[in-house]
């Protein structure tokens, strides 16, 4: 069966910024495909290109067999989009929003009422159908938006950060929706996220994107396997950058570890095939250098580790989260 999304060297520049930089990938029919990347990586821009909202600077995008630039109308007839930002009319009620959406997305009027009722039940908003959207909570607005995206039974659903800014319970709820859609309705899902747990739990395949470029692509398992089987996390007693650097150099030099990264001053991440054997070696090295270790932990690699090892940065830095909270509030206002 042909791939439902094909991107070939897709590029979008804003002035001198290459927001999406020669991105190539394919999405198979029926799978959940994830775009994982930090803020500003180019995830939303990629969705805008594939959903005909923006024209690519160069490269080609095909969705459901149609070129996004040459036959945008054909593409629009086959997709559903959940935008990162709120796109509902806040002055209108939930019901009115879905009614409008249904008619501009071509749902026949005869079946629209039933369809709306079904979907309101699906996202558990029946009791709120008659209230203005501005009275909804963030999670309720997100669910209504999901209902709108599903209303016209698209072949492929683009979900831009479907759980951004939601509490853990609502996030889990939305994950269930997405999984049941893919299983029961055979909808292909393309989603973006900067939550690695979301990518791990939901996606059959994930592309990791940073600075507009895809830096890794595969199933979460494949991506993690490439790292080695375990990740050892070393915290030094001192936060001296110099000391951390010396320690990292000596770990690299001993040749036992496939990857060694300074996460931040005082913290080093090391990938190893067997942690219980690696840890004593790490202590030995520290002793040689008279570096004091505060704590050593190890875990199975996560996509977070994959990102760290590919870019030398963390996907979501704790320092960023304060700023991010502000951004989320701004978007949901």
């Amino acid at each position, binding site marked *: 069966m042909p791939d439902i999304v094909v991107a070939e060297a897709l590029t979008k520049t804003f002035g001198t910024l290459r927001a999406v930089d020669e991105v190539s990938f394919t999405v198979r029919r029926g799978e959940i495909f994830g775009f994982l990347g930090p803020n500003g990586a180019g995830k939303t821009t990629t969705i805008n290109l594939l*959903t005909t909202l923006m024209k690519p600077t160069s490269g080609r995008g095909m969705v459901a067999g149609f070129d996004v630039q040459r036959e945008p109308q054909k593409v629009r*007839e086959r997709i559903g989009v959940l*935008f990162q930002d*709120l796109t509902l*009319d806040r002055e209108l009620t939930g019901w009115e929003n879905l*009614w409008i959406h249904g008619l501009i997305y071509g749902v026949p009027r005869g079946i629209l009422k039933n369809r709306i009722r079904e979907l309101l039940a699906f996202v558990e908003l029946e009791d709120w159908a008659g209230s203005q959207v501005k009275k909804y909570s963030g999670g309720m607005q997100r669910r209504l938006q999901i209902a709108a995206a599903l209303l016209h039974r698209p072949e492929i659903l683009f979900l831009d950060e479907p759980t951004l800014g939601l509490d853990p319970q609502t996030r889990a709820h939305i994950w269930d929706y997405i999984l049941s859609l893919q299983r029961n309705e055979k909808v292909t899902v393309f989603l973006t996220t900067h939550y690695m747990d979301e990518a791990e739990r939901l996606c059959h395949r994930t592309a990791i994107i940073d600075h507009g470029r895809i830096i890794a692509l595969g199933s979460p398992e494949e991506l993690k396997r490439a790292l080695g089987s375990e990740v050892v996390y070393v915290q030094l007693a001192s936060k001296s950058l110099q000391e951390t650097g010396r320690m990292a150099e000596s770990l690299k030099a001993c040749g036992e570890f496939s990857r060694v990264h300074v996460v931040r001053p005082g913290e080093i991440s090391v990938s190893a095939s067997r942690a219980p054997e690696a840890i004593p070696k790490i202590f030995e090295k520290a002793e040689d250098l008279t570096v004091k270790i505060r704590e050593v932990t190890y875990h199975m690699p996560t996509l977070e580790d994959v990102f760290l090892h590919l870019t030398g940065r963390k996907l979501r830095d704790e320092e960023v989260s304060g700023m991010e909270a502000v951004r989320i509030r701004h978007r949901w206002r």
Partner: protein
Amino acid sequence: MVNPASAAYVMWYRQVKRFIRTRSRLVGAILQPIFWMIFLGLGFTSALKGAPVFGGIDYLTFFTPGVVVMAVFFTAFFSGISVIWDREFGFLKEILVAPASRTATIAGRILGDVTISMLQGVIVLTIAFLMVPNLRLLGVPLVLVAVFFTALQFTGLGIALASKLKSFEGFQLVNMLIAMPIFFLSGAFYPVNALPAPASIIAYLNPLVYGVDLSRTALTGAGFLPLTSAFAALAASSLFLLVVAVWGFKKATAE
């Protein structure tokens, strides 16, 4: 395939629903023209001790037809330009990725804005007849024609400008540089044909002048343009602004 009539209908429905839903807009629609008529119209009339002014009628009677058309102008222009708000609050994206034809959705939206602007016009006209004794009832159909074209062209102008403006920063500028001159040079307050050369030329380029003059002729007989030329100018500028609006909206992207 999306039925263009359904898409147009539902955009009309949205504009009308929003207008009815927002109580402050309805209340404003009724109070604002009453204030104009009392504070400006009656104010000048009593300051002039009811003496006849332009065209041999008292100031309130002269001013009132202009109030009707100005109210329609403001409602239409700001409804049209609210496409900026739809861009800012995201609703526009929903329309831009919809498979419905853009011509159908924008046509529906324009019709919705025209409907609420005309509703506004009818409300003000009713108030005018209750407050001002000397208006001609027979002129009403012609006033409705003026109101319709005024609504159409300023919705068009609003949408055309909104398709160019990327955020509401430009909005203040549009208000100052476009809405205010159109408003003050509309001929509602004083006859613009008597203005000195540069101002009167600008006035003739102002599409609002023709709507005001047409309804003044209809309600009082004191307009300065022949009916046919006022009508022709209205129809021509409406057509032009509509084409610009639809063209601008069809080319809109999310950038």
